[in-house]
């Protein structure tokens, strides 16, 4: 690799992890950190066992349970659902047999894998990070190359600490200007997906840049990178800067003392060189972004909260018209309806997109001194035990409980319908998670994606609402 060619952040991390290049361009890529959870790992460990293979680097691997578990006190007893219980028990057996470090449910550090990675300093700038989970893109906010893999690849990494990969293309999304009042990282990323579409990033790794991205704290950057996969991208990343270095410093698994200084010196070389080539570039004006909400069953079906449900007849393409009609039927919507008139049954504040302390503070600021509307079930699910403890120290749990929100234990919860927190058929939810697919939050459930502050506003109003009408009381 010539040292003179300007390279992107992605190129630099990629080049630093090439073990070998095969003749057809496939690369044996070294993986620095491998996060695993109970849902996508059982068949991988089983594969190792059958082939008589070991985990090559248990020290670079960590396991946690997050998807299957209940988020109330019942989780500390026996898991009721026999299949969920079997998955959790299988993981516990596997980590013991293969010597993989494990964070059990009873450990305060337990939480959603994509929340605890950065929080514990397991995910660091410059790393290659993988997990059998598409939202691994979250960790790209650290200035890392982080992407989701399937179970066969989980097994491949366990056995070899590498993956067979073809390089991705480079895409840059530039977000310039200041965000308007009431708008957040979630609104930025929903607006990006609305613009590029759910396949807009296919085959690419997206680098988010521009002063609006620079101005985000690490939690905001994680929210943006998290949803890269909803834009079809392999991964999303933000160049490491002082915000990143300050965030990493002092985290339990982060380098300390002289090692930290050496690490920072290397991390500072990672940002894209001036003139580096991007195969595709997209620009957004941060100031033009209004609070966003999805209306359909794909994350690209997004509009400003001031908008109206679209009319299928307004789409030129016949297939698209049919698709929009199907979505309206599924979502129980009529063309032209004001988004702000849609009553919600459930509000979910949580998931690896928006369950960090900053997210909870934003929601609590809106909820403080107000009440959840009658008939609305509102849940707040911290992303990890540590986030929960921090929130309780700040008194956010009291704010939520007094307003009528449920205050839960950490986990994936209602982000996906595989643990006890589910929508009932036909229920409409305002959710801070990342996917509004049919049945994602439970069969027949109807999901509207939005930011934590917007979710809190919906809980108080009893319908989708504009957070700008709810200025903090406190």
């Amino acid at each position, binding site marked *: 690799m010539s040292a003179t060619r300007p390279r992107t952040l992605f190129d630099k991390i990629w080049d630093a992890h090439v*073990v*070998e290049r*095969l003749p057809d361009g*496939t690369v*044996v890529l*070294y993986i*620095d950190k491998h996060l695993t959870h109970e*849902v*996508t790992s059982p*068949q991988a460990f*089983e594969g190792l066992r059958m*082939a008589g*293979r070991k985990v090559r680097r248990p*020290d*670079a691997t960590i396991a946690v349970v997050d998807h*299957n578990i209940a988020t109330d006190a019942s989780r500390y007893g026996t898991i009721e*659902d026999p*299949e969920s219980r079997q*998955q959790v028990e*299988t993981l516990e057996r596997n980590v013991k047999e293969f010597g993989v470090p494990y964070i059990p449910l009873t450990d305060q550090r337990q939480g959603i894998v994509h929340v605890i990675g950065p929080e514990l300093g397991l995910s660091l700038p410059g*790393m290659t990070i993988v997990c*059998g*989970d*598409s939202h691994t893109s979250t960790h790209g906010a650290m200035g890392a190359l982080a992407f*989701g*893999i*399937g*179970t*066969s*690849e989980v*097994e*491949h990494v366990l*056995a*070899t*600490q*590498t993956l*067979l990969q*073809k390089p991705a293309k480079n895409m840059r999304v530039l977000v310039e200007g200041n965000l308007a009042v009431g708008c957040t990282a979630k609104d930025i990323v929903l607006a990006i997906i609305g613009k590029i579409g*759910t*396949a807009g990033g*296919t*085959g690419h790794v997206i680098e988010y840049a521009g002063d609006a991205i620079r101005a985000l704290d690490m939690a905001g950057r994680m929210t943006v990178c998290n949803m890269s996969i909803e834009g*079809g991208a392999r991964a999303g990343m933000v160049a490491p800067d002082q915000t990143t270095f300050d965030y990493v410093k002092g985290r339990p*698994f*982060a380098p300390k003392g002289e*090692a930290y200084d*050496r*690490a920072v010196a*290397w991390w500072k070389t990672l940002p894209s060189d001036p003139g580096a080539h991007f195969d595709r570039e997209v620009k957004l004006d941060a100031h033009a972004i209004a609070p966003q909400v999805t209306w359909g069953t794909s994350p690209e079906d997004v509009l400003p909260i001031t908008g109206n449900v679209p009319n299928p007849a307004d789409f030129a393409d016949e297939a698209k018209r049919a*698709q929009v009609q199907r979505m309206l039927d599924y979502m129980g919507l009529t063309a032209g309806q004001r988004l702000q008139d849609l009553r919600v049954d459930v509000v979910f504040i949580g998931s690896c997109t928006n369950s960090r302390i900053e997210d909870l503070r934003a929601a609590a600021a809106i909820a403080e001194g107000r009440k959840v509307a009658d008939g609305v079930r509102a849940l707040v699910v911290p992303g990890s035990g540590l986030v929960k403890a921090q929130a309780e120290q700040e008194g956010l749990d009291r704010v939520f409980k007094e307003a009528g929100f449920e205050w839960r234990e950490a986990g994936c919860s209602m982000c*996906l*319908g*595989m643990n006890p927190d589910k929508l009932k*058929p036909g229920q409409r939810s305002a959710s801070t998670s990342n*996917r509004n*697919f*049919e*049945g*994602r939050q439970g*069969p027949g459930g109807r999901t509207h994606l939005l930011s934590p502050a917007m979710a809190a506003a919906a809980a108080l109003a009893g319908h989708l609402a504009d957070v700008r009408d709810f200025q903090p009381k406190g």
Partner: protein
Amino acid sequence: MQAFTTLTGIAAPLPEANVDTDKIIPARFLKTIARTGLGKNLFANVRYKADGSENPDFILNREPYRKSEILVALDNFGCGSSREHAPWALLDFGIRCVIAPSFGDIFHNNSFKNGILPIRLPREICEKLMEDAKLGANARLTVDLARQVVVRPNGEEIPFEVDAFRKHLLLNGLDDIGQTLQHAPAIDGFEARQKAAQPWLYA
């Protein structure tokens, strides 16, 4: 992994874009610890009614499509999560090949690892194949991986692209891990160099 050479079979038309992995197999079926047995849950939310009975309108519940080995869909098939349960469910149902204008990246990757061939073809061609597929058992498609062509019932041959390395593994039914372990000395060397330069990565 079962090798993939040529396949002649019934193709099911699924004229939809953005068929996501939650649709291919909903999350509640991911609680298994096995790779097999998921075929009955394929497309469960649309394939069955609330009472568990079959939805007669869904393509895979109709003859001859119950025996489909090929699926023809529209853009961005398999978008969404990384769940390998999606190709496992397709495979367990009997599908060995999916043809679409584009695919979710991870699904595309996962398919190869399970002996399923995902073929990208321009939308107009997918629509033509969709028309063939609608003719059912009288219009079987043939997929010839070695020659990289899809053969339509009228004999027309449509060439497609496939990554050379993936093709090699698929034609021979080879597993990736075995291939990679041939590079073990290079991996050892990489680790020694990285450990010297970035010791904090080796706790």
